[in-house]
């Protein structure tokens, strides 16, 4: 498959400040993104981080207050109609057309994008089959379950073969089965060459699906790269947990001084060591115990997760 040259999405110090009754509220404060064609890119962040505003600017419906954004090489402010021809978007809310049935939602979307009625009908049926919605084709959007409505919205975003597919929190509020099924469908799309930019605050989703991610918070990119790079750069720790068959030996406190260890927690017979450089830590816990005359009854080593990296970057205070 040939891919177009250039980037699918590019932003330079893109910013949006809302002016409301409470004065100026900066939602996005200068972010730089680069998404390649065919890439599955994740925009991660807590609620209110600026993810949806960013998607809004990239899909031309939110007007940036500073910086610039390009989709498929086209400026979103200067060429909104051209940009809209090349993108599909499934937003967080259910924005299905409730005056139309499920299949009509897809057919008319195709016709808005220049398909003939017959071509739109064929494409709609194909998508309904692909997304397991054939038996709901005549349903009103209000009669669909949350998962079905989400899938239909993704179908609708795909009708006109967009170059870039934007998904704003596609699995929010869905049950685990529906979520896993949706992930399979999205992976299938990506394998077919679809460029996808998704926002999420589910770490598992980003870890499983995304080639690259950017963590944003308070309207800024805190880190970006592959999931593996992010885990390393964010200083996420491996957690080594050891349980002794007696009280933890006093000597384990000395591990705090070991290079690469960030924290040691001791509760009764259990010791948890948080280490960026975990090699040798488990051995030392065993030998310290042996010296003190206690043996290790249980031991576990957890590699760093995207979640711990994410929390390291964004902090732990409650959001919204």
């Amino acid at each position, binding site marked *: 498959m*040939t891919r177009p040259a250039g980037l699918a999405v590019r932003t330079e110090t893109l910013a949006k400040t809302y002016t409301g009754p409470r004065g100026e509220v900066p939602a996005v404060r200068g972010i730089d993104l680069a998404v390649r064609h065919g890439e599955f890119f994740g925009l991660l962040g807590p609620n209110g981080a600026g993810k949806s505003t960013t998607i809004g600017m990239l899909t031309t419906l939110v007007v940036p207050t500073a910086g610039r954004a390009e989709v498929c090489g086209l400026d979103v402010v200067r060429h909104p109609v051209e940009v809209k021809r090349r993108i599909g978007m499934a937003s967080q809310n259910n924005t299905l057309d409730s005056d139309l049935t499920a299949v009509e939602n897809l057919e008319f979307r195709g016709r808005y994008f220049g398909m003939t009625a017959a071509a739109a009908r064929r494409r709609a049926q194909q998508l309904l089959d692909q997304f397991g919605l054939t038996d709901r084709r005549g349903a009103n959007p209000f009669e669909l379950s949350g998962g079905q409505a989400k899938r239909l919205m993704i179908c609708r975003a795909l009708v006109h073969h967009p170059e870039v597919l934007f998904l704003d929190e596609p699995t929010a509020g869905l049950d685990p089965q529906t979520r896993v099924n949706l992930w399979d469908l999205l992976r299938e799309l990506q394998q077919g060459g679809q460029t996808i930019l998704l926002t999420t605050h589910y770490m598992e989703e980003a870890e499983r699906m995304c080639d690259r991610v950017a963590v944003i918070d308070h309207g800024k990119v805190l880190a970006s790269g592959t999931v593996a790079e992010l885990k390393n750069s964010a200083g996420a720790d491996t957690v080594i947990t050891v349980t002794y068959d007696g009280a933890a030996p006093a000597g384990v406190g000395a591990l705090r001084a070991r290079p690469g260890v960030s924290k040691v927690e001791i509760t009764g017979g259990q010791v948890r060591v948080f280490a960026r450089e975990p090699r040798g830590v488990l051995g030392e816990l065993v030998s310290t115990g042996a010296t003190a005359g206690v043996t290790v009854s249980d031991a576990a080593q957890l590699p760093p997760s995207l979640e711990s990296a994410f929390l390291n970057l964004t902090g732990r205070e409650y959001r919204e």
Partner: protein
Amino acid sequence: MSTETVPAATAARLRPTVAQTFVAMMAREVRVMRKNFVSTFIRVILQPLLFVFVFAYVLPKIGAGSGVGMFARVRGLPTFSTILVPGLVASSIIMQGMMAVIFPLMMELSWQRSITDRALAPLPIPMLAVEKIAAAGLQALIGGLLVFPAVLLIHARGQAPEVHVASWPMLVLVLVASSLLAASGGLLLGTLIDPQKIQVLFALVLLPMTMLGCVYYPWSALHSIRWLQIAVLANPMVYASEGLRAALTPQVGHMPAWAFLSVLVGGTGLLAWAAMRKFTARVLT
């Protein structure tokens, strides 16, 4: 996966023009109108139907027997049904045009913000406003035409409305301009008003507009209440009623053509322009 999902290659083939997208959106409106035809028909027809039934049939009948002469035929004066034909058609046009755009817009701009759906179609946002005006204008026109059979046919003996079209082009122009005026005004109101205050809209805007819209009396007859005759000039429905009066019942005293035409056409332009700006500001944040 089939080749259907190869995006770059297939996307290049779909290059809809703005006109194609506009037509497709109108096709959607027509589909929805067709689906809702029965409920719309009942909603549109019921009020004028009952109105002519009571005022052009029941009351003249009662009057003839009981000596209540108000609605009985007075030689040389137009029947009340003659007054009502242009009035009720005009009020149907204005009401349908406004409601056809206000109700869906309230839903689209609030709650789930489903306007996003059509805002993402490859069309400049002001053109989306034009499309909404065109669609609501079409519904207004249909709303007006649906009323004709009722107002022409329901009346007591001797109370038939005297209707003759002096100028067809004038009739068509007034019908179309009134429809677009109502749709543009509806779009402007819909973008200005808070969805929770929709009840207020009915009480404070739509009801007085009808009662004081020269629907039930010709504007020229208001000369005996001079202040009211001047005050109602602020009401756009007056120009629709008077325009139709001139086109359908020219024998009844009516406003000069230059007056109602300049308001119907100029007002449509002005309201449509303001509505387009306001709508664009609401959709793009």
